[in-house]
């Protein structure tokens, strides 16, 4: 477990974990995302920022596979995944959270995490046997539960959790399959100050074999966790750099006076 230091502990000679080239998506005649190139290296902590309407969510969904692009390519872990379905990308090692927690409401917290762990493994369809694998999966599910602070609530129906606890479970679901690349969709949205601190610490505490991408429009959390920031504006890449560089950038200031705390 390594905390983020000043310089990113990233091997610059390695191949990028995520690469998009010319990624474009039209809705009607309007390009919500327009020709975005991006490289994220293994172990990196990247934030993708921009105000509402900048195209962050659309860009996120293009990488995740929820939306097919109009033009351009997406490469994950060295493979061209542009035409690959969501579940296949997940099995390659891509994890993600949702802006509003999508937990499995009718199942217990532990069962939720169990399914998340199982998702990356074999045996989805198993009806009989596999006792030791199932026990191992349960153990791992409980570990993840502890990691996100839900160890006392494992037996509770996920739909009955408080809002903050559901966010915790949401992160647990994303972490459980031990993804290589984890994308967070506005993880700080709707969190209290204290919850944001917990979240930030959790993200900072994650091991380097998980690469992180945060889509955010709240700058505080993003700039604390990120080592590199990509700024989107009207679907295009505006500027890229370290948090300090972004903070100092005149164009960013001109375009987003006081946007550090977003709308509302």
């Amino acid at each position, binding site marked *: 477990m390594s905390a983020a230091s000043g310089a990113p502990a990233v091997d610059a000679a390695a191949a990028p974990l995520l690469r998009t080239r010319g990624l474009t998506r039209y809705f009607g005649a309007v390009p919500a995302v327009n020709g975005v190139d991006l490289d994220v290296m293994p172990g990196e902590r990247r934030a993708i920022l921009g105000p509402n309407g900048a195209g962050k969510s659309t860009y996120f969904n293009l990488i995740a596979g929820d939306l097919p692009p109009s033009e351009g390519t997406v490469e994950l872990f060295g493979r061209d995944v542009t035409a690959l379905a969501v579940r296949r990308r997940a099995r390659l090692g891509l994890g993600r959270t949702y802006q509003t927690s999508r937990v499995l*409401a009718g199942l217990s917290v532990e*069962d939720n995490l169990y399914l998340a762990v199982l998702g990356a493994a074999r045996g*989805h369809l198993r009806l009989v046997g596999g006792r030791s694998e199932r026990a191992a999966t349960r153990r791992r599910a409980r570990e993840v539960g502890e990691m996100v602070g839900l160890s006392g609530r494992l037996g509770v129906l996920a739909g009955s959790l408080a809002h903050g606890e559901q966010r915790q479970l949401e992160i647990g679901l994303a972490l459980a399959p031990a993804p290589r690349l984890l994308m967070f969709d506005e993880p700080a949205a709707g969190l209290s100050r204290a919850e944001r601190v917990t979240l930030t610490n959790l993200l900072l505490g994650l091991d380097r074999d998980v690469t992180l991408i945060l889509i955010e429009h709240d700058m505080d959390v993003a700039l604390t966790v990120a080592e590199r920031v990509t700024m989107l504006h009207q679907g295009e890449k505006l500027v890229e750099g370290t948090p300090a560089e972004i903070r100092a950038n005149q164009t960013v200031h001109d375009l987003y006076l006081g946007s550090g705390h977003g709308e509302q």
Partner: protein
Amino acid sequence: MSGALRPRARVALGVALVVALALVPAIFSTYFTSAVAAQALVYGLAAVSLTFLAAYGGIVSLAQTGLYGIAGFVLARFTVSNGMDPLLAAVLAVVITVVVGLAFGAVVSGSEGIYLLMITLALGVITFYYFSQTPTFGGHEGINGVTAPGFIGDPVTHPAVMYEVLLGVSVIVYVAIRLVGRTNFGLAMQGVRDGPTRMRALGYNVRLHRTLAFTLGAVIAALAGVLGTWNDTRISPGTIQVSQIIVLMTIAVIGGLYRIEGAWIGALVYTLLDTYSRGLTARFETWIGIILLVILILSPDGLTGLAQRLAALWRRSRNGDAARPVADASLPPGPGGPGLEPGPGRTGSTESPTVLEPGGAAQ
């Protein structure tokens, strides 16, 4: 159902219930055993193929009577026209029905909610029309004189054995459903019910899971079709016509659409009504429609849902605080919440399987 009973107590209760039910032929008349008890078990088994899919899979299917019919007609045809051994014919009938169920499941696996309801209704009606137009299966008349295996004998004059067989199969199906619910497949099935998008993002093949879940439902419907046809000694298109599709749905709703036990409770209520109300009214169909309407308006989760809410009220008045909804591994799962649409007012967003998304979930 109430979560106030510990698992061991619940099992003991279940065993006691089964033993009591097994004594029915000894206590009641031959007529009752045949016309009410056995018939209720047949309806219950057919209905549980519906409630299983709804409760564990979030799939409300109106195609179950169609699958029942396929099993029954194939069984009847093999037994009567080909002189096949009844047990062998039964096995073949179930296998063929399961294959068709797999095909149906694949067709509907890309759809959800109300859209799926419509498609399965269309499938159920098409199946009815097929059997009423095909001479191979007796056309309008159906097939009579279907003999059950030797050890069952004549279900009309000596219904006790048929009844015990039905009871045994029902118990096995019930236990199997509970066990399957805790397997990887069963948990994944419930995950797909609660959040197909989430499950996809976790790496699951949602369409495949739905297809296989539907196929399991077809197994249960096929068993009901075989046993029901033996019990009636005949089958005709009338057994699976549109009004019967609605009857099965009504039974499920009376008992509780998302409760496994509800299938048999609803079946018993319906069979009692069906048997004993004919003298009171010639317009039984109208009354069934009215009953369905009343339940949908007042207590959409049926009698079991009503019972559960009354129990919770009682507990609350005793303890003075709200009962805590703890997940119990042996409890029937479900989208929860009163009403037919899952969890109104729940925190966090959950994908509701009963809300129509015309696009279904694209893979």
